[in-house]
């Protein structure tokens, strides 16, 4: 089955800094999503991005499906960006997602 690896496992940033989180996946996927799990445990869907590039405010994501990786960019980080960022992939739409172990981000003021 699909395997998802995320790096780095932990990241500490000064407020205002930029960062790039990486997700590698083992098989061809038609469903790639990024989530943010806040300190209270709520998972928020950030991007549905099986290919290409999308931007939403200070966040953007790029998936290169042919090379089996996706990147999440966080610019001008804020303390509210802290939490765990998960990448998850699936074979197609409306199939179960396989999650990576996440990147734990701490943004300090």
């Amino acid at each position, binding site marked *: 089955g699909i395997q*998802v690896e995320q790096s780095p496992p932990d990241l500490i940033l000064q407020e205002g800094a930029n960062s790039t989180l990486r997700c590698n996946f083992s098989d061809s996927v038609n*469903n790639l*999503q990024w*989530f943010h799990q806040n300190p*209270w*445990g*709520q*998972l*928020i*869907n950030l991007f*549905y991005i099986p290919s290409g590039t999308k931007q939403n405010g200070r966040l953007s994501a790029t998936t290169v499906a042919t090379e089996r990786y996706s990147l999440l960019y966080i610019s001008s980080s804020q303390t509210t960006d802290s939490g765990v960022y*998960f990448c*998850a992939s*699936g074979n*197609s*739409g*409306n*199939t*179960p*997602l*396989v*999650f*990576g*172990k*996440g990147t734990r981000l701490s943004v300090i003021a």
Partner: protein
Amino acid sequence: GAGVSQTPSNKVTEKGKYVELRCDPISGHTALYWYRQSLGQGPEFLIYFQGTGAADDSGLPNDRFFAVRPEGSVSTLKIQRTERGDSAVYLCASSGDTRGAQYFGPGTRLTVL
């Protein structure tokens, strides 16, 4: 509109007891998923419904776990003869289009003593 809701938010039970966890998906979403998350790990798939039927239950760990979605909306995850190893956060997600973007509820934290 309202997001995915789950009840209870916390459940403490004793080993060997039976528990039911409820998920109310976003209105109109036909796909519903159950995942389980242990401390420090990503969510792990349990079961997926498309409408009323279980389209994929390959993630259920054993036959003590069962889930239903009788009217294609609310789903209940049922765990019989709970074990301490069942302690985790149980997450529900729903999806409303063919792309499969999933939206998660707040989870139920299950503790088996």
